[in-house]
């Protein structure tokens, strides 16, 4: 299945794109996606501990099951205000 990845702030600078489609096994979880991201984007490795993830605009943990077309955002520590 295909999901959409969104990159913001420093992650966007590191990866070089704002968004991209990403291919995953059906029934993959967010944890599975994070595992795949390690080999696709090794340059994000040092950031992994500080990142939060959102699935369809809601913070999500590794156990969340993903579906075709889901929008997954990598969220660096926020600094609004």
């Amino acid at each position, binding site marked *: 299945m295909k999901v959409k990845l969104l990159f913001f702030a*420093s992650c966007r600078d590191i990866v070089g794109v704002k968004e991209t489609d990403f291919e995953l096994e059906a029934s993959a979880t967010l944890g599975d996606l994070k595992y795949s991201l390690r080999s696709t984007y090794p340059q994000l490795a040092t950031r992994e501990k500080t990142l939060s993830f*959102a699935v369809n*605009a809601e913070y999500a943990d590794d156990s969340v099951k993903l579906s075709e077309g889901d929008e997954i*955002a990598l969220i*660096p520590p*926020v*600094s*609004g*205000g």
Partner: protein
Amino acid sequence: MFKITENAISVDALHEQVLRDCHGAVVTFAGVVRDHSGETKTQFLEYEAYADMAEKKMAEIGAEVNEKWGIEQIAILHRIGRLEIGEISVLIAVASPHRAEAIHACHYAIDRLKEIVPIWKKEVGEDGAFWVEGPSKAAEKNRDDS
């Protein structure tokens, strides 16, 4: 109203939006771009947001202050793009029948925004540009410092 905007924010932009005849207090908080960060001089800031999620999270903050203080009228505006020194980056307005609830709720709302709303600022200064991630050192020293 909970909104991400690319337009300049005036200090009274939300006043009428939240004020009702039953209210005795309107508290507004404006976050403003300052000319330094620690020892470094800031030239300007660039804000970026995950707009759909940011507006949703700001609305959740509205629901939280409703639950905690019974506040029915709160509005939050956050600007993105390039902001110059002295310009307003975020404006929060809270109205309530009596002042205490509005003051507490406004303080809570800005603290919460800095915790959960997906917005990021890039500081551009004499030493280059870098993304601020998480609370700044100055903010850690003084959590009320905005």
